């Protein structure tokens, strides 16, 4: 196996984001992200806003939340519910797929 791994390969994969980076990613302000946290839509690591870091799963959830809010006009409790239900649905679909019954 080749040892030299081009640095740019890793550079372009979005890993953990800070609060500031997540705001830019979602085109949102900090208050909106804080609201996401308060509703348990995303869970940052780190104590205090300055040290927050958001995992790839949180990044994806935040992005979906933003789009659902903007495109469908859902409020925050509705977003939290929709995302949980969508995840449960996807999980069940994967299970169905394992039994050859994917829709």
């Amino acid at each position, binding site marked *: 196996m080749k040892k030299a791994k081009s640095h*740019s*390969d*890793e*550079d*372009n*994969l*979005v890993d953990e984001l800070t609060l500031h980076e997540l705001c*830019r*990613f979602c*085109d949102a302000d900090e208050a909106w992200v804080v609201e996401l946290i308060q509703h348990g839509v995303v869970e940052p690591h780190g104590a205090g806003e300055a040290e927050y870091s958001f995992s*790839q*799963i949180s*990044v*994806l959830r935040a*992005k*979906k939340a933003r*789009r*659902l809010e*903007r*495109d*469908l*006009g859902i409020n925050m409790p509705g977003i939290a519910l*929709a995302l949980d239900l*969508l995840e449960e649905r*996807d999980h069940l679909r*994967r299970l169905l*797929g*394992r039994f*050859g019954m994917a829709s």
Partner: protein
Amino acid sequence: MDYKDYYKALGVDRTATQDEIKKAYRKLARKYHPDVNADQDADAKFKEAGEAFAVLGDAEKRAAYDALGAEPPRGGQGFRPPPDWEQGYQFSDPPHGAGGPEDAAFSDFFENLFRSGARAEGRTSGMRAAGQDQHARVTLDIGDAFNGTSRVLTMRVPEMDDAGRMMLKDRNVSVKIPKGVREGQHIRLKGKGSPGIGGGPAGDLFLEVAFAPHPTYRIDGRDIYVDLPVTPWEAALGGKVTMPTPGGEVGITIPENARTGQKLRLKGRGLPGKLAGDLYAVLKIVNPPTTTQAGQALYEQMAKEMSFDPRKSMEA
């Protein structure tokens, strides 16, 4: 450019009220929202509904659209707007108003009729601003994710020309897909978003990774699942069989008395990475049709010598 039947896109009559149009759009938006509906064509349908609503949902634009005529001219192909188009109508709202699909690059029809005249406000001389980030999705085959690859994507992006008008442009963007990328991850292409204004830096392009369905492999996070058919005797006696994986064929040991649905784990054979995923072979016992006398004799012997009632636990 092609004529777009926006009433058809929303499934409403030309006489529909604004309320009916809004309701029809909301219903379609919920159904085809790309975060809700994972079908390949959902995104296109969502955008189509969004474009239709951007016109019909706005009284002024709807009136202008209606004035084009009820019938798609010349079968919809090669549509040209009348020369006095736009006269008497003023499209006051910003083209990227809230409530529309993200970074929407609508059809040529829309861009020409409803956007090309829109002047960018506040973006005149002396202004310097960073370009906007853009988001898009890239659908990969599992093999691409397993091995890494590179792709050239064609992005349709609205760009400002020298006269400050929005034009649709096709832009080719080459992207390196890193090995082991997983569904839902984002690839950042620095400076490949919208260009900056007045020498400002360009925005970034973020690509969300999705996987195309595969006939053999199913992906769950880092793990890969494969249905592995085995014969009744392979299941009973155990032994080694070879199976395909995205990384090439591997040998796998079937345990004695294996059951249908039993999962065998091949550690580290899932999607590669710092924390490589696992590959699970899900056994499926397949019995061959018995066509020869010798074959039948084997089954008869089994019936005689093996006392097994699979229906034992069923209630009468």
